[in-house]
């Protein structure tokens, strides 16, 4: 199967300092991948590369078997949905935000209402469709940004720190949405988090970054062991309350 991403000898520098150094990385399709690491570990740098929002200074990046070019083709662009750490909603209503994203992706006007409604439904925001975007709360804003990113039905969804600055109830809602997208809708979901336990619990695969390098962390095994013990028959989904799995 063609990998979703193939990274080879990737290096990203910032002011002559190497921020990201990945000799080789394959991300398989239809996987839920967690990029783990502390602040400044290179999680956002890696996600920006995967979203084609920035270019590596060295190395090659392939998206679904096709090597990176200066500009993505429309089809390649359509295969990616990206949600930044602090999503920015454009002026206008929530509905308009999602519909505009579809317009920018070149989706025909006849298809837009149906796809917009479906995306809002997937993140449980249908009831807020007509609300101005600036009135949404933090949790609603994150879900709105996800709706906007998945409206055009991309195969890959990239989420940069989707759980940051959210309270417990919003984290749970978002975990359910990510679970649904990854395991029901069959998308390749790649998200970053500094909460290793959460990453291990939600994802099939984890990428542990320390100072821009992928590291096999012994801690992860400990976390995985804890989860294996506690998840039992609950499947992939586990819900956190103040750092505890319930």
């Amino acid at each position, binding site marked *: 199967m063609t990998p979703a991403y193939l990274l080879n000898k990737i290096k990203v520098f910032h002011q002559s300092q190497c921020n990201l150094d990945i000799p080789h990385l394959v991300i398989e399709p239809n996987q839920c991948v967690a990029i783990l690491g502390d602040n400044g570990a290179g999680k956002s740098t890696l996600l920006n590369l995967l979203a084609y*929002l920035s270019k590596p200074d060295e190395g090659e990046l392939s998206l679904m078997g096709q090597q990176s070019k200066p500009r993505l083709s429309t089809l390649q662009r359509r295969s990616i949905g990206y949600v*930044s750490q602090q999503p920015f909603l454009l002026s206008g209503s929530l509905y308009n935000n999602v519909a505009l*994203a579809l317009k*920018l992706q*070149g989706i025909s006007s006849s298809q837009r209402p149906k796809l917009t409604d479906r995306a809002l439904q997937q993140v449980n925001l249908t009831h807020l469709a007509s609300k101005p975007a600036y009135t949404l709360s933090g949790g609603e804003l994150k879900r709105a940004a996800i709706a906007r*990113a998945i409206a055009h039905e991309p195969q890959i969804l990239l989420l940069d720190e989707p759980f940051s600055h959210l309270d417990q109830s919003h984290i749970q809602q978002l975990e359910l949405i990510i679970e649904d997208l990854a395991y029901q809708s069959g998308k390749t979901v790649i998200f970053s988090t500094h909460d290793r336990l959460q990453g291990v619990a939600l994802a099939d695969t984890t990428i542990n970054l320390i100072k821009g390098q992928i590291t096999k962390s012994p801690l992860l095994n400990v976390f995985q062991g804890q989860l294996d013990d506690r998840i039992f028959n609950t499947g992939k989904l586990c819900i956190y309350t103040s750092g505890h799995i319930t």
Partner: protein
Amino acid sequence: MSFFADSFSAAIDLIITIDPALYQVVFNSVSISLMAATTAGVLAIPAGILMALNQFLGKQLVQNILNTLMALPTVLIGLLLYGLFSRLGPLGHLELLYTPSAIIIAQALLIFPIMMNLAIAAVTTADPRLVPTLISLGAKPLALVIQVAKQTRFIMLAAVITGFGRAIGEVGAAMMVGGNIEGYTRTMTTAIALETGKGEFEVGLALGLLLLLIAFFVNFILSWLQQEYR
């Protein structure tokens, strides 16, 4: 004091009685400056957005030139265009001298750097997440410029209005390339200069008051739009 008070009273009379000659000048002035602001806006705003979004060799030099042009004396623009449009000039065959078109071109050139600089400032001071968000949503270069303009539309509108204000208030270029022909190229500012020179202070004052009224009306529309379409 009596002179000023009498003139002020006469000026108010001219405004209230809707003096046709007075309002012809106002109409000329507003339509010429609106055309100039629209023409300059259509060119300067996309140019400003493109300049703000892209890095290129000599960008700082272009920025310095723009800053210099912002302080360009209006008579200098008038002088240059007079040379170009006069019968012996390279564009003399277009027969633009002493026409409203010549004033529109002069005013558009005058306000272009101001509007472009304001457009650049609008993009550079906008939320830093705006452009990456639009790119991540799949915006191609043309769509990116359009969406950035839409998202910063009130600042862009303010840029157009600032340009309009500068255009309607300038006198040097309009006088030189327009010729101050009554009922044709006479604008409010050239009329004020002429009438005051003739000793018709009340007409000049009436036009001055109307100029202020237009500035107030334009600002009122801008703040209303900002409230209405937030």
